[in-house]
């Protein structure tokens, strides 16, 4: 609650929002992101800087976007060639879930 109050104050004073949010919260959230990143997670060192985590996060999300784009491309080619029917959808459902 207090963090929300402090960020509201900073908005009124017109200063940068980041400096008024508690550093602990940022550290917590950054370490949570760190756990999710596949490369950094394996090193398990606390010395990874926040900016490195953010950088890796941006790269990871960009890679995921690129993969979705590539997979959509392949799916569109596959859909054009195969005749997808409801049976096939049922097979996929059973295999995936």
């Amino acid at each position: 609650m207090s963090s929300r109050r402090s960020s509201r104050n900073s908005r009124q004073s017109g200063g940068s929002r980041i400096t008024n949010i508690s550093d602990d919260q940022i550290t917590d959230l950054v370490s949570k992101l760190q756990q999710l990143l596949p490369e950094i997670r394996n090193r398990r060192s606390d010395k990874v800087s926040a900016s490195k985590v953010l950088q890796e996060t941006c790269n990871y999300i960009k890679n995921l976007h690129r993969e979705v784009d590539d997979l959509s491309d392949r799916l569109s080619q596959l859909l054009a060639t195969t005749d997808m029917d409801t049976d096939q959808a049922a097979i996929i459902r059973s295999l995936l879930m």
Partner: protein
Amino acid sequence: MNSRSLLLSPNPNSLKSRFTEGLLRALLRINQHHHQQPRSSREIRKRHRLIKTAAYGSMASAVGNRKAWSRALLSKIRNQARSGAVLRRSLGSSTRLLSMKKRICHLQKGNSKKNRVEVGGSGQVDKLRRLVPGGQLMDTCSLLEETAHYMKCLTTQVQVMTRIVEIYNIP
């Protein structure tokens, strides 16, 4: 045993299941409407765009309104569909009107970015804002939380799509 792994006991209400269900239904619909072989590159691009939108849209629908990023993504898709349909109906496809359509879309995109650029953030945070849907409207704390959830959902999305592609590759 806590069944964290969905492979052992598939939960029909899990995010992954709901996303898969939605995506498969969308793919069926796209295939029914665009059944003939896409000839022109324009049709191929359109089909590619439809599938990509279906993927992001199904994931955002599966998450629902619980997260800011999914709400932002859903409203963006709805606006795109709405403006695309209105423009197609009223403008037709002459070249002069096509360039006007491009200018309108460009203006819309420009407005949403201009009002929300934050001063005082590090370059990394701004880059992250552009990558996460709805990121321009969030404060830094929420942005980091939304990013974590968004990353998890994107990873699931890629997993499921990869699996679908693998299954279709079997002749």
